[in-house]
C-alpha cells in the first residue's frame, strides 16, 4: 500500500471537504445491484520481498537462454545488449514520461525519436521512417494497408517465405476490410514465381529478406517488375543486424520496409514488447501510419522537435484515419537508438560480419554431420537444416541436455510437410564452446 499516500485521517478530511459522508457516496452512479460489497476473490496485498520471491519462483521454472547455449531465431534473436542501453531506458525521465504531447518539456523523447527515425531510414536505405510500431508483424500488416492506400488497389501478394506469424497477422488484419491477400506457398528451393501474379490490380508484393528459412536474395528485378505494373515492393526485415552486411532494401528498389528492430537493444522478453520499424519514400509519407517526429524551431529560433502530420491520425480523422494505431514502442525504440549509437557504422557493420561468419562456420560443421544437411546456399545468421529425424523430438532431446538447439519449422508451419526441418540461428552470443556442445549433442542424438 506504500504507493498510496493518504492516511485514514486525511481521507476523512478530504471527504468532508468534498461534502460527502463516506467514500461510498463517490460511487453512487454505479447501479446499486451491481456494486461489490466485499473484496474480490484474490489474494491480499503482498510486500516487495514477497512479490520478488513469487517472480523468482516463476523464473526458476524456465530455462534461461543465458544459461544454455541458444540457437533460436525465427524472427527473434539473442544479441548482447550493452548495459548502457538498459541503464538509459531506466532513467526516470524516459521511463515514466508519456507521449510527448507537450513538446516544450518533452524534447528528450522527441529528439531521440528523430534520431531513431534517421537511423532506421539510413539502415533500410529509405528516405523516411516513423517513430516505431508495435512489432514487425503488425508493421507488415500496416505496410499492406498503406500500399493499398497509396496505389488505390485492393490486392496484395504475400511471399510464401514470409514469417508465418507475419502472414497470419496480415491475413487477420485484412479479413474484414475491402483488401485481400494472395498467399504463395512456402518454398525451400528456387525462386517464387511472383510474375505470374503481378497484374494491374496488385497493390504490392511482400517479400522477406533474409526469408523465413534464412535465404537471402537480391530483389532489384522484382522491384522493377512491381513498378512496371504500378505496384509497390514491400520488403520485410526481421533480423535487422543483417543490414550491416547486406544491400539495403532501399538499394534494391523497395517502396516500403517493414521491420522488427528487437535485435538491437531489446531483450527477447518471451516475444514482446518488441519494436516495429516502418520506412518508406518521402512521397508516401502522408499515407504512412503511426507517429512521426519532425524538426522545427521555437519562438526564440532554437531548433526543437514536435510530433507532426497528425492530421492522418485517429484523433483528427477518426473513422477516416490512416490507421487506428495510437501508442508506439517508444521505450524500445529508445533502446534501439542507444544501442545503434553505441555500435555506430564501425560496430554495426562489424557485428553483422561476426554474426555472418559465426553462422557460416557453424553451418559447415553441422553439414558435415551424418543425418544433417544445410538446405540453403545463401543465408545471413540463420539457416535451415534437414535432419534424419523429427525436428521437434530432436529439439526436446537437446533441451533435456540444456541446449536450446533451434526452432522446428513445424511449430510455425503445421500444415506443410516439414517435420524434419530445423531453423538454427547463430549470433555473436554463441561461444565456440556452445557450438561444440550443439555439434556433439546432435551427433549423439541423430
Amino acid at each position: 500500500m506504500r504507493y498510496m499516500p493518504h492516511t485514514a485521517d486525511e481521507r476523512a478530511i478530504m471527504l468532508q471537504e468534498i461534502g460527502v459522508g463516506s467514500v461510498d457516496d463517490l460511487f453512487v452512479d454505479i447501479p446499486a445491484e451491481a456494486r461489490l460489497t466485499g473484496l474480490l476473490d484474490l489474494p491480499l496485498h503482498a510486500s516487495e520481498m514477497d512479490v520478488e520471491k513469487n517472480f523468482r519462483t516463476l523464473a526458476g521454472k524456465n530455462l534461461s537462454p543465458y544459461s544454455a547455449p541458444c540457437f533460436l531465431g525465427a524472427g527473434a534473436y539473442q544479441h548482447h545488449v550493452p548495459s548502457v542501453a538498459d541503464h538509459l531506458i531506466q532513467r526516470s525521465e524516459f521511463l515514466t514520461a508519456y507521449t510527448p504531447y507537450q513538446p516544450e518539456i518533452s524534447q528528450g523523447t522527441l529528439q531521440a525519436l528523430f534520431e531513431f527515425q534517421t537511423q532506421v531510414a539510413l539502415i533500410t536505405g529509405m528516405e523516411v521512417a516513423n517513430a516505431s510500431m508495435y512489432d514487425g508483424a503488425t508493421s507488415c500488416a500496416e505496410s499492406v494497408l498503406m500500399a493499398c492506400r497509396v496505389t488505390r488497389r485492393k490486392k496484395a501478394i504475400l511471399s510464401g517465405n514470409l514469417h508465418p506469424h507475419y502472414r497470419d497477422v496480415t491475413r487477420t488484419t485484412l479479413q474484414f476490410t475491402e483488401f485481400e491477400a494472395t498467399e504463395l506457398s512456402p518454398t525451400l528451393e528456387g525462386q517464387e514465381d511472383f510474375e505470374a501474379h503481378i497484374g494491374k490490380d496488385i497493390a504490392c508484393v511482400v517479400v522477406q529478406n533474409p526469408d523465413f528459412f534464412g535465404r537471402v536474395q537480391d530483389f532489384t528485378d522484382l522491384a522493377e517488375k512491381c513498378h512496371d505494373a504500378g505496384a509497390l515492393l514491400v520488403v520485410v526485415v526481421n533480423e535487422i543486424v543483417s543490414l550491416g552486411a547486406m544491400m539495403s532494401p532501399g538499394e534494391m528498389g523497395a517502396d516500403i520496409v517493414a521491420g522488427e528492430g528487437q535485435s538491437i537493444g531489446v531483450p527477447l522478453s518471451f516475444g514482446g514488447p518488441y519494436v516495429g520499424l516502418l520506412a518508406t519514400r518521402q512521397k508516401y509519407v502522408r499515407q504512412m501510419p503511426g507517429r512521426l517526429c519532425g524538426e522545427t524551431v521555437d519562438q526564440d529560433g532554437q531548433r526543437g522537435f514536435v510530433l507532426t502530420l497528425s492530421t492522418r491520425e485517429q484523433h483528427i480523422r477518426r473513422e477516416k484515419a490512416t490507421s487506428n494505431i495510437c501508442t508506439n514502442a517508444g521505450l524500445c525504440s529508445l533502446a534501439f537508438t542507444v544501442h545503434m549509437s553505441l555500435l555506430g557504422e564501425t560496430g554495426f557493420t562489424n557485428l553483422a560480419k561476426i554474426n555472418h561468419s559465426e553462422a557460416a562456420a557453424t553451418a559447415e560443421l553441422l553439414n558435415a554431420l551424418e543425418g544433417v544437411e544445410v538446405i540453403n546456399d545463401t543465408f545471413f545468421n540463420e539457416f535451415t537444416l534437414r535432419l534424419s529425424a523429427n525436428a521437434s523430438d530432436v529439439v526436446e532431446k537437446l533441451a533435456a541436455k540444456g541446449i536450446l538447439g533451434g526452432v522446428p519449422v513445424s511449430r510455425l508451419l503445421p500444415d506443410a510437410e516439414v517435420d524434419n526441418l530445423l531453423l538454427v540461428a547463430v549470433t555473436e552470443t554463441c561461444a565456440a564452446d556452445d557450438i561444440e556442445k550443439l555439434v556433439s549433442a546432435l551427433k549423439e542424438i541423430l
Partner: protein
Amino acid sequence: MMLNNQGRPTRPNTSEQDNSATNTFTGNKALELETPLIFEQGVPGRLGVDMTEPKKVSSRLGNTARSKPIGLPDLSEPQVLRHFVRLSRQNYSIDSGFYPLGSCTMKHNPRINEKVARLAGLGDLHPMQPVSTVQGALELIDDLAHWLKTITGMPAVAMSPAAGAHGELCGVMAIRAAHEAKGEARKRILVPESAHGTNPATAALCGYKVESVPAREDGRMDLEAFSEKLGPDVAGVMLTNPNTCGLFENDVKKIADMVHEVGAYFYCDGANLNAILGRVRPGDLGVDAMHINLHKTFSTPHGGGGPGSGPVVLSEALAAFAPIPFVTHGENGFDLVEHVEGEASNSFGRMKAYHGQMGMFIRALAYMQSHGADGLRQIAEDAVLNANYIRVGLNDMLHSPFDGICMHEALFDDSSLKDTGVTTLDLAKAMIDEGYHPMTMYFPLVVHGAMLIEPTESESRETLDQFIGAMRYLLNKARDGEATYFAQAPHFAPRRRLDETGAARNPILRWTPEEDDPQSDRTLSAAS
C-alpha cells in the same frame, strides 16, 4: 552559425542573440546542458562496443553483400551515455512531478516491477523455446489472466493485443466474427461523441459504418438518440465507462440490455478501469468485450509513448472467437495453442507475432500482487477521492460543464477564461512554468475548451493542495489581464513555444548530411 540543408540552425543559437549578458559560448546554462543530434557528433573509427574480429570464412550472402556505407556516426560509450542523459533531462515525467493528464492515467511506476521484469529466466526467454522450458512463463500468463478475469468478472481473456487500440481491434473483430458465425452481416457500430478517436477508427478497420451518438446535458450518452439509432443491422456499441467526461454512465445496464435485445454486442473501452477496480465488475454490467490498458490501470511505465499492452476480456458469447495464441493447462502442465485449429477453430486469427507483451505482463502482475484485493479497491477509492478533491478545490474558479460527483478525473471548460485573452492552451503552457505537466486539453471534443485533470491515487494531499493553489494563482493572473504573460509561456522550459504549423507544412523527419561538411565544425560541436 551552422545551418542544415533546410536552412535551420543545427545548434542552439542563443549566443548570437542581442541579450548576450545572459548567454554562454556553448549554449549551455549551468545544469541546463544542450546536446546536438547524435549524427552531429563522433569521429569515424571510434567504438562504443568492444567486439572480436570476425572469422575468415567465405561469404554466404550471394550477390547481396553491402557495398556502400550506411552513414552512422561512431562514438565512444561515455559520449553516448552523456548524450542521452542530457536528453533525458529535457523531459518531464511522473518521477519528476505531478502529471495530471486526463484519460492517460499517469500513476506511480514502481521499481520492483522493473526489477522482476529483468530477472534471468523471465526477461530473457525466447518466444520459440520448447514449451517444456517455459512452464514458469506460461504459468505467469495464466496467473495474470486469472487476475484480469476476476477483476472484471468476465469468463475469458485474450492476452496478445499490443496496446489499447490494438485491444479495441481485437474486441471488435471478435464481435464481427461472432456475427459472421451466425450468418449475420450487420453494418453499423454506434459510438458516443465523447469516445476516444481510436474507437471509430477501429470500427472502420473492421468494415463497419460508424455512427455517432450525442451526449445529454448531464454528460452521459443520450439514451433516446441511442434507441433511435439501434436496429437489427447494428453490430455493437463502443462505450467508454467511466466515460471521457470523467462520469460513470449510470444507465449502463439499460444500455447493455438494449444492445443485447437487438442481437448486438456491448464493447466497453476499458481505458478508465482504475476508477472502478474492486467496486464493480464490468461483467456484471453486461459488457461483452473490454480492453484493459495494462500501462494505465496497472502501472507499467508509458516510456514516452509505449510499449503498451491491451488484453481483452470477453463474455461467454465472444470467447470462442478470441485470437490465438492462448495458454491451456492439462495433465502435463501448461501448453500453448498457437494455431487456428481444434479448440481454437472459431478464433478470428492472430494479431501479433508470438504471445503478447510479456514484459508488460510481468510488471502488471507485480503491481496487482503488491496491491491485492484490498489494495485494488483502495486504488479506485483514492483515485476518485483525489479527482473530486480537485473538482471541489477549483469549482469556484473554473466551470464544470457537468454537475455532481466525478469519477477519477475532473472536467472543466474554458468559460471562466472568457474575455481574458487567455486560451486553454496558454493556461497549459503557464502550468509548465509552475513545474507541472499540463492537464489534457481540448478533449473530450464535446466540451468547448475542455480541461481534463486526472490526479490518480498515488498523489498526496500536499501535492493536490499545491496544484490547486498554482491553478488559482494562474486563473487570478488571467483575470487580472496578464494575457501577455500567458501568450509567452512557457518561459522556463528547455524550449519556448514550438512552431508546430511550420513543422507540418514543411516536414523534416530525419537528419540529412550537410552538403558542404566542414569537418572542423562537426568536431567542435561534438567536443562536449
